[in-house]
């Protein structure tokens, strides 16, 4: 309550000084950035008090202070803070990669692969079928030819199945969960991140052939797509090796080094045209797995420390980008899609777990960790809008509304999964050794 009062006073103070200042020297962006950190932090703490994950609080703060509501964070200011978001994604990806141990990959790789395959296949099919068969009810799908509806439904489904490594990592960091539900969810999310990039690229390439975008240049070649993925693994491995060398021979100023690695990752992927998330995942994985015991952990801790305010702002900015009006307009279409997607994820993980012979809590609870969506999905929806002005824009609106719903519901569900899986403090269920496998490689 005290913090809310302080926040209100700070907001009042900002309104007082706004007429006196100018935009130069990045002062406005810093002012908004600082306020957003404090606001998101406060709402995040309040969310924790009522049993909701902090990141939902950060998102809520973004919505409240964003352009849709109070307008403290203007669209321009949010754009100025894009670099912070990129930095956050890079840090998240590196940390996520560093969470994976080689021993765990060897031991649980088949399980993860099977769960991911089943889950992605079912959810892709279900969302595609729903949209294509229900096209008569969706305003912008009614009047387009069947082939176009087919292609756009495929594109929509390719984005709708994307998960959120950011939310997964943020919640695992927040709860310090290290059990089978957390690790399996993280593994599936990371693997599926590679798979959906490939799938989306393939669907997009097919879409360009079947429904050529009006007046746009040709899409990326197969070679470029292959480079985007393989190049990411290559660049990521090189970065990971460099990080491991630094940790072994220098091992100082880890906080500055962590930020530099993340910034470097963002920049180098732009220059080399490789997939950023995958690059930093690979970098984190390599660095962690070839470093000596304790070295990688020290870097991870430094990274988590420096990332903390960046995460807060990343999720708050994600919230600020939610268009409340747009979501409200499309809510009637979005809710059935979200429910079907959720159902398909649930069924997919059950099928995948049974296929792999998993009997632990991951069989029952991992689906709850796969509902969240955030940055990657938003990025892919923008690619569709860029390629197909008109229908693509409408499709992006629908996707953003879906992402907004999943972004809000997903973390709550994942937190619940970790609670009932007995992997957080104050969990409602404690797993006995006989009920599930022990955490591996942690």
């Amino acid at each position, binding site marked *: 309550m005290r913090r809310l009062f302080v926040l209100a006073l700070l907001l009042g103070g900002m309104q007082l000084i706004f007429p006196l200042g100018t935009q130069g020297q990045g*002062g406005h962006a*810093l002012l908004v950035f600082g306020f957003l950190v404090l606001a998101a932090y406060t709402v995040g703490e309040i969310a924790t008090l009522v049993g909701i994950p902090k990141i939902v609080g950060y998102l809520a703060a973004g919505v409240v202070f964003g352009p849709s509501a109070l307008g403290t964070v203007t669209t321009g200011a949010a754009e100025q803070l894009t670099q912070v978001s990129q930095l956050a994604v890079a840090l998240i990806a590196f940390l996520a990669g560093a969470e994976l141990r080689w021993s765990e990959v060897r031991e649980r790789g088949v399980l993860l692969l099977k769960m991911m395959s089943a889950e992605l296949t079912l959810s892709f099919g279900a969302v595609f079928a729903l949209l294509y068969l229900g096209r008569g009810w969706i305003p912008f799908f009614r009047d387009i030819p069947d082939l176009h509806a087919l292609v756009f439904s495929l594109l929509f489904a390719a984005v709708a199945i994307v998960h959120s490594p950011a939310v997964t990592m943020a919640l695992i960091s927040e709860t310090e969960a290290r059990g089978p539900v957390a690790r399996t969810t993280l593994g599936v999310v990371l693997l599926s991140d590679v798979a959906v990039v490939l799938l989306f690229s393939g669907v997009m390439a097919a879409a360009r052939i079947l429904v050529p975008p009006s007046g746009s240049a040709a899409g990326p070649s197969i070679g470029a797509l292959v480079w985007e993925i393989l190049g990411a693994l290559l660049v990521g491995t090189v970065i990971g090796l460099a990080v491991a060398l630094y940790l072994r021979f220098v091992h100082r100023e880890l906080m*500055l080094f962590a930020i530099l690695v993340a910034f470097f990752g963002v920049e180098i992927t732009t220059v080399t045209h490789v997939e950023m998330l995958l690059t930093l995942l690979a970098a984190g994985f390599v660095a962690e797995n070839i470093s000596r015991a304790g070295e990688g952990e020290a870097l991870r801790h430094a990274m988590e420390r420096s990332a903390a305010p960046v995460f807060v702002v990343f999720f708050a900015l994600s919230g600020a980008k939610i268009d409340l009006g747009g979501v409200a307009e499309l809510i009637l279409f979005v809710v059935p899609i979200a429910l079907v997607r959720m159902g398909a994820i649930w069924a997919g993980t059950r099928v995948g777990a049974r296929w792999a012979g998993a009997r632990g809590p991951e069989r029952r609870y991992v689906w709850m960790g796969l509902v969240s969506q955030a940055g990657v999905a938003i990025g892919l929806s923008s690619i569709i809008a860029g390629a197909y002005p008109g229908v693509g824009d409408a499709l992006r609106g629908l996707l953003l509304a879906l992402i907004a719903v999943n972004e809000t519901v997903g973390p709550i569900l994942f937190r619940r999964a970790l609670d009932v899986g007995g992997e957080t403090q104050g969990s409602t269920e404690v797993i006995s050794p006989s009920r599930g496998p022990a955490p591996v490689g942690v």
Partner: protein
Amino acid sequence: MSASLILILVVAGAYLAAHVAFDRLAHRFNIISGAEYLLLGILIGPEVAGLISAGAADSFAPLRTLALGWIGVLVGTQFYVREMIRLPGVLYRVAFFEAILSLALVAGAMIAVLTGVLRLPFAESVMPAVAMGTIATVSSPSAIGLVARRLGRRAPLVLQAEIASAVSTAVAISAFALLLCIVHPGGGSTARTPTPTEWAVITVGIGCVGGALFHLFLGGERKVDRLFIALAGAIILASGAAAYLRLSPLLPAMLVGVILVNTSKNRAEIRQVLVGVERPLYFVLMLFAGVAWRLDVGNWIVPVAAFLGARVTAKLFSAGIAAALNGALPVLGVHWGRSLLGQGGVALAIGLNYATYENTRLASVVFTATIASVLLTDLVSARLAESVVRPQMEQKRRAAVAALAASAGEE
């Protein structure tokens, strides 16, 4: 290749080079580290290699402002009143007198040089001269800290130098912030531009109100990770507010630091968080300062040389006078001012703030003088400090030995 990528590669390369070579050299020759980043920034900046263009350098403005704010808060946390009042008042009187006298002497000397040599009208020379005065006032605690660590014992001179460093920094930051209020270019969308006095009140207001609100906001939070988020938000907000209003972020941030350290129960944790980020931000500041360096004035050698000379003379003279007027000369010695010659990060922060501020006069000359002073004093300040601390230590040791010998003779 993008400017950011170059900067990242250079920082990484510089750090590794510094680790391999400079650290050993610095340790062997008593050099304060940090100057290598400044030099690297100059080398890759638009004025030398041009790897980073002027536009790209400007795009780092928010980070620069954040670094200034963070340094300001750190300066403020040195002023914990409960600890300060345990020390004799004469230490503060000497420090304050030395700082004010240094400021006045250097500002006066520089007005004379700028009007006499550069033929600037008096009104135009006051602003850069006072800015140089404030920069000259700053004494870095690094050299004296290094010497104190090396000699392993505390002498009265070390304590006096540490207090003088803190006080001179506070005086310099305050004077500089007030200078920016006086020369404020106006702007904004109000019907009337605030007067310098009103800008000064706003500057202090941001610091005091911000400090009070952040104190309430942080509460009794003791978990360092959570404190880091809240503290980072507070510093970003305070520095951003000052930069948005085109005021110096240093003074409001310093006031936030003073208020937080004096009102919060968790001051130890607050300091821990701030100090944890000090070195990375210090390096970043050094590098950005180097990148921001420009030289667009032909006749710069005379004012820069005059500044260096005036500063050394003013510091030595005012330290001696301050000690003499307060009766501390027998304890501190005539040459104790040598321990105050280091410049360090805060001087550079002030110089950078001046150089990147709108409508400033002779910005490149003032900044060049600052950089020259920082580079030179980083090389020699530790040796100079040692040259006055070591004899005092020796004297104390000899006195102790003599006392011991006398007592043994009596027995």
